[in-house]
């Protein structure tokens, strides 16, 4: 930093001004909103919980990005499609017929378990196939090349599944046991939201233990650290990478089921935008870091949910919710200016960047 004496003044001044402007706008907007007080407290609580639930979904998908990035340093653009593939298939073959026959409401736990298993199986299958065909042969190629095949795979799977199941929106049946709200510490929470948040937390803890405490997890971390040395130490690099892909895709498969529970409809295009959002979340938290992905997802969900109402409503901007992505991305810029490696990211060495 000290070396850049000549540039530091100009650049830092500009960046400081930028930071000040963003933070100033955020504070000004928030104060204006608080003074105007457009929403009752209840609305805020609802909005926050919705944000946490949405954020939990982002987090689960973001983990797939982060895991793959950790071992291969590639942006797996097709990850959102893995998320879509599993739940779309499970909805068509299981959830819809069971919804009609009433089986799902008679045996919700068994039904959901089987749906989840199918969703995971398809997501993992698609992910491994993609890895084998489109990524593995390119492991030694320049970094942007696998990015392009990933983009190709993303389009391919989207339209493949559209061809399989059609382009219309598919309804996911509503489960009676998950209808309505429950009271948590006196706050009314939608049961579906509660399920999403609790399962996401459990999944994250499970994953953390898997990566940090088990032998397989250790091999993944070793490969992430240095593939060549890991290979020398007798670790099967291909196997570790395969397991990484499978783990990420399994999380996406579960995220798909949770998504279907909350939003109750699925579609061939549903993976694309959450995929991009999750990628954003992974970067926000510091790409390559599992807790970072979780935190990034959560923050992104919150910004999107609470941001427009809090920062923009008071400024009298029409249709503030249309601008939620503007808020999310502006805050992303702000955070990355403050911490270029993301919130929990390590200072990336230049080979990895």
């Amino acid at each position, binding site marked *: 930093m000290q070396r850049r004496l000549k540039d530091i003044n100009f650049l830092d001044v500009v960046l400081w001004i930028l930071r000040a402007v963003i933070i100033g706008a955020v504070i000004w907007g928030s104060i204006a909103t608080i003074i105007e007080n457009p929403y009752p407290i209840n609305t805020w609580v609802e909005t926050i919980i919705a944000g946490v639930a949405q954020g939990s979904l982002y987090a689960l998908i973001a983990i797939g990005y982060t895991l793959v990035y950790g071992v291969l340093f590639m942006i797996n653009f097709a990850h959102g499609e893995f998320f879509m593939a599993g739940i779309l298939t499970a909805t068509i073959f299981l959830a819809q017929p069971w919804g009609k026959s009433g089986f799902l409401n008679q045996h919700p736990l068994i039904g959901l378990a089987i749906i989840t298993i199918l969703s995971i199986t398809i997501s993992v299958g698609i992910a491994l196939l993609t890895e084998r065909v489109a990524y593995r042969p390119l492991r030694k190629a320049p970094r942007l090349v696998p990015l392009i095949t990933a983009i*190709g795979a993303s389009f391919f799977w989207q339209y493949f599944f559209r061809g*399989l199941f059609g382009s219309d929106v598919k309804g996911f049946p509503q489960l009676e046991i998950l209808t309505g709200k429950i009271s948590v510490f006196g706050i009314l929470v939608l049961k579906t939201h509660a399920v999403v948040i609790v399962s996401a937390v459990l999944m994250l803890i499970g994953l953390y233990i898997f990566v940090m405490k088990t032998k397989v997890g250790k091999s993944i971390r070793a490969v992430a650290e240095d593939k060549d040395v890991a290979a020398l130490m007798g670790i099967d690099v291909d196997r570790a990478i395969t397991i990484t892909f499978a783990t990420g895709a399994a999380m996406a498969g579960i995220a798909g089921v949770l998504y279907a529970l909350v939003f109750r409809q699925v579609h061939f295009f549903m993976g694309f935008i959450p995929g991009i959002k999750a990628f954003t979340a992974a970067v926000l938290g510091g790409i390559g870091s599992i807790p970072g992905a979780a935190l990034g997802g959560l923050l992104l969900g919150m910004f999107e949910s609470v941001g427009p109402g809090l920062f923009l409503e008071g400024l009298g901007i029409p249709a503030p919710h249309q601008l939620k*992505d503007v808020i999310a991305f502006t805050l992303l810029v702000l955070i990355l200016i403050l911490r270029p490696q*993301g919130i929990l990211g390590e200072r990336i060495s230049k080979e990895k960047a």
Partner: protein
Amino acid sequence: MIDNKTYSLKDIIKTGLLSGLIALSLSVIGFITLLNKRELVAGILSLGHVFLFSPLIAFAYLSAVRIKDEGKYKILGSGFLIGILTSIPLLILALIEHFYDIRQFLVNVSPDLMEILLFNQGIVAGSIILMLGMGLVGLLAAGLQTLPENIRGPITYALTWTLLIGTFSEILSGRLRSFFGPQFVKIIFVRKALNPLVAGILLLFFAGLEINTQKRKKRDDVKRPWKNLDPRIKNGLGMLLLLLLPLVLGTYLTEVVNNVGLYVLMGLGLNIVVGFAGLLDLGYVAFFAIGAYVMGILTTQGHLGFVSMSFWTALPFSVGAATLAGIMLGIPVLRMRGDYLAIVTLGFGEIIRILALSDMLKNQFGGAQGILQIPKPNIAGFDLVKPEFLFYVILLGVLLALFVSWRLRDSRLGRQWMAMREDEDVAEAMGINLVSTKLLAFATGAAFSGLAGAIFASKLTSIFPHSFNLIVSINVLCLIIVGGLGSLPGVVVGALILVGLPELLREFAEYRMLMYGALLIVMMLLMPEGFIPSEVSKRELHAHEIQD
């Protein structure tokens, strides 16, 4: 794909089943059914059949290559076996569909598909025909390998070209019609397919052509009359051809070329940012949007306009605004690297689009309803309405951008960019001012894109925020990498492949994106360094191999 040398029966079975699964996938997603409506040779061959059999032909041929030293019978046998195995997944599908309605799950398993798979026969007869037919095709494909090169060459050459002509018959017939009149076209094409007789003639013709070339090659007297020409004359002739292009191509193909041209312009700009300077930008569409919107607002005659400039007066403002935006985006991301840069630029692109779309700025930018009534470029009182005229405006822009890119690449600045791409820290240590070097890359790239956007707005006469979504950025990035990162001719070739080709395949609309995705994967697997790699990246790849 399988690297072991022994290629056993097990491998053949695996190959056969794999080919069957691919054929099955193509069938159940409705691809075959759609393509079956499109005949290549009238009454004989449809594109659906070609695609149904293509995995089989490819796999049978490839496995024949693997075992080419093991005797004719084994080769033919393996081809036949692969053919039979390919039919099995399809037969299972047909059987299931026969007894149980799986269309409630898979919408494209339609009666039409069953007719194609079973050749309009009943389930029993159809299955036998399919199985034996596939066996026969596998046998032939494998048999092709056993033929000597001087027979195999002409056969594949003739088949490929005839099929290509059949595939693009729609466009070809349009062009032929305007040159030789409708009567001529009616002989060659029956509806949109080749007349069987003409297809036969074409086969003979191309076979003859290839035999001829082979003979010449043997005698080593391949004629290349253009080899001895003066390069200036060569360039002049090339330029002349380019200028006459719209006359040859006609309205629709010129429109396609124009769209390719706009993407070439953007590609050249992004090539500077990503290819030369190594800064991964996923929000490149932002500058395109800014160029287009500035052009729109300054020239529109609708209610959003306030100055009603002409295209040429507004052009510098468009390009200037985009350049400025390039610098403004550049500043906050100066210290970000790699994928952090990618996501922030992606965000920037989305922010611009959402702002243009928003109700907040509806009175300035038209919101969802966009900007209408933008005039076309005008030269001396004459509006350039037709694509044939706009072609020259775009050509001018592309040539300018090519020239600038070419000069910059070999300039001091260009070398600084490349040094920065290789290693920022080392570059800085060598005395390169990273701030100005990076900002100049962003600014130049943005300027090209702004120019493209300005022409785009004027070409369409109306712009909507939806034209500026993430897919545009992704497309541009794909085309420069498929073409060959950092390579100027690569940009042109990449745009032709990724923008031109999908446009020509418009009739497969539903599956265009599927084919696009598959194309990206296949191209990258076959040519990871791009179609026309730049000199530098060739060296790099080589160095990489040594390092490993």
